[in-house]
């Protein structure tokens, strides 16, 4: 393929990565959600690009789904949930690592995911070679967010970021051939979000806080 496409791919990949970093860097739930929404939009765009590049029509569907579900439905649901539980601790109490450190760590993670994807034979498929590391990075960053953050809400968002990474990953490697599975994953995630929002609701009822530090009754020491 000609170089413009490749550059476009690269650039979009970079933007996506930046968006992800944005999610990591932001504080406070609402900022998070916006960052996530932004990321999802970028993701949708990327998906369409990939669809264009590979010329497989299912991918457009996937892109559409992404746009609808992730950048509209899920944020709606979450905002609704947070609205309904009138508690002030929507801004994240300070995470375990300071912003500086967490940025450094996430840089390491990105490096790792690039290193990891080095070991995989691509058969010179530009889509894979560009987006595999990006998706892995997204994945690990989401995981890191989960490890690092203290409130349940932010963990949900971390989960969502992970899911984005997964989505991209599957898309890139499978070229959307197995749409059933894509759909299945979507469905799972949706249900997961619903359940977690129910849980959030209950949690705020019983513990009147969404601090996961409150969830330490079950331990062994």
């Amino acid at each position, binding site marked *: 393929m000609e170089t413009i496409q490749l550059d476009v791919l690269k650039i979009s990949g970079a933007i996506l990565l930046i968006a992800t970093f944005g999610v990591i860097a932001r504080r406070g739930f609402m900022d998070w959600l916006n960052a996530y929404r932004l990321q999802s939009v970028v993701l949708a765009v990327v998906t369409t690009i990939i669809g264009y590049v590979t010329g497989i029509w299912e991918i457009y569907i996937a892109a559409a789904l992404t746009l609808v579900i992730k950048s509209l439905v899920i944020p709606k649901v979450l905002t609704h949930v947070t609205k309904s539980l009138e508690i002030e601790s929507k801004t994240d109490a300070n995470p375990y690592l300071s912003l500086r450190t967490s940025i450094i760590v996430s840089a390491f993670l990105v490096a790792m995911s690039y290193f990891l994807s080095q070991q995989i034979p691509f058969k010179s498929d530009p889509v894979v070679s560009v987006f595999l590391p990006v998706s892995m990075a997204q994945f690990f960053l989401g*995981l890191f967010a989960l*490890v690092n953050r203290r409130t349940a809400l932010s963990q949900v968002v971390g989960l969502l970021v992970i899911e984005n990474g997964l989505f991209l990953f599957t898309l890139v490697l499978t070229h959307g051939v197995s749409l059933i599975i894509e759909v299945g994953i979507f469905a799972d995630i949706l249900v997961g979000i619903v359940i977690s929002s129910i849980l959030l609701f209950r949690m705020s009822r019983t513990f009147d806080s969404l601090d*996961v530090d409150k*969830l*330490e009754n*079950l*331990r*062994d*020491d």
Partner: protein
Amino acid sequence: MIENLILFQIVVSLFLGGAILGLISRNSRFARPMIFIPSMIGSIFTIIFSVDVIMAKPLSWIIPNMLPFFNLEIFVDGISAFFMLMIGIVSFAVSLYSLGYSKEYETKKRISFFGFLFNTFILSMILVAGTNNGFFFLMFWELMSLTSFFLVIYDHDKEENVKSGMTYLVMTHFGTAFIFISFLLGYLQTGSFSFDSFRTSSPSFPHLIKDLIFVSAFVGFGTKAGIVPLHTWLPKAHPSAPSNVSALMSAVMIKMGIYGIIRTVFDFAGFGASPDYSWWGILMVIAGSASALIGILYAVVERDIKRTLAFSSIENIGIIILGLGLSIVFASYHLHALSILALVASMYHAINHAFFKGLLFMGAGSVVYATHTKDIEKLGGLVKQMPWTSMLFLIGAVSIAGLPPFNGFVSEWLGLQAILSSSQIPSTILQISIAFASLPFALTIGLAAATFVRLFAMTFLSKTRSMHILHIREVPRNMIAGMAILASVCILFGIVPFLGISLLSTAFHLTSQPTSPFDAITLKNNGTTSFANLSMPVVAIMLSAVALAVFGFIRVIGGKTTKTIYGTWDCGFGKLTERMEYTATSLSQPIRVVFKSLFKSHNEINTEFFVQTNPYLVKTMKFNSTTKNIFEENLYTPITSSTLFILDKIRKIQTGKINSYLLYIMLTIILLLIFVRLSHV
């Protein structure tokens, strides 16, 4: 061949039947006969079966396809049959005894389950002796432990019983792990768990493997046998169990450990007659003499009648192991005759111990049955109320003290001769060290006598030390009958050693066979002169002859005189009360002082004065003397506490923080990825 297969099946089915009958008896009035009659008949058939095997042919029987990979192989040769005979005789006596003894469980409504366990326990021991496959051996072995565990904690309303049962279970499982390892090593060499393959190919094992197999088996079976320092479960479990059970356990079950050791050494570990293997024997000699001495030293200061017996079991096991070790040493130096002598000594002591220890535990059981106390400080004077029990107990005590003309003497005589013969080992260092090993052995014999004088005297003689046992009665007839059987066997094996020795030499296929009951056990020097002789029948005759003679003589000289019954000489002080008698503790006090380093005995005296300033008018004086078990303190406690410390550190990872949990996952994946990158598999 066929007929002894049928016999074996009869045995198994009888005990199974007893177990099931026990369960369905539902504590009814007929529960006891329903339980113990089958076990008695089963025991009789066991005796018949084992004798048949010893005299005629070994039995081998295979049931395939019950489980994948493993067939249930039964193989009963002379050695197994010898131990089965032991089981049969003892369990017959004990079952008879239990008919009366277990009445109290009937009242407690627990008899039916007891019967189930009792029968299963005996059956499992028989099967352990008869199994020929590693897997099933372990299965029956553990079944034996499990049933005996439940029997030990049978009075589970008492907290300490459950505790000691727990100790027993854990220790024996620890032992089983070692046995398992030794089987695994054999499996590694042969690719099969069948004992036949072990037998056939064990001589070609590499030497290191042989040593490993031996050591792990020795530790494993030694735990069951109660070799110091793996003995700690024994003095806990035996007192907790009902006395008929402790009789079975102490008389027979711990012998299964001996059986395992014999099997391993002579069958699986590929023992070869070369000095390379002599260290096995040395190890056993050391372990044996240590067990003997330490066991009896704890026995002599013990207050609990059953725990005393338990400690003395440790002692006797030590003696048995010592004999085995000697026989191995001799064999490794090609001294065939001597190794036979040592083996006979050890096995003879094994079967003797089965008899008199069973007898003694049943006697102790009768005492507990009558008085409901195990503390000899509270007993005494029972000889008047329980003449039969005391008589039989005395026979047991004299036999276990190794005094002629009872069976204990014969086996210890043989043992001592075996030690003396160590002078023929062509290695000075071994000669001297074994000679030194005789020192603890002799000391043990002395202490054993002391222990049982003390036990018998404190339990049965002089004034009773507590009022509540004044009005007790002799135990029921069938209990006495049960004890009488074993007592008579003790005397028989003492006066006619020919029985035991010829039995042994047929069972173990030993070359030298005694021919007639009356010719003496003779050990010859390499020259013609006789090294030592013993002919117990003649000794018995001489004893009775002398008795008659002296009786007649005294009568002739002294003529008729009268006996006056009068109070004991009290220095004109007044009535002697039971509080002035010598107590068990004070009786053994000199020994406690001599060996104080072992007991860590700690005395405290607190005195009250009438006038605090005046130290001459003493109102009350309390003396309290305690001895500790140094093994628990210096060996077991540190091990357990350090283990728990480590465990405590490990389990701290369950912090309750979800973040840390997620972090674990993240780290795991990263580490594994690095690991994969680095390792080139």
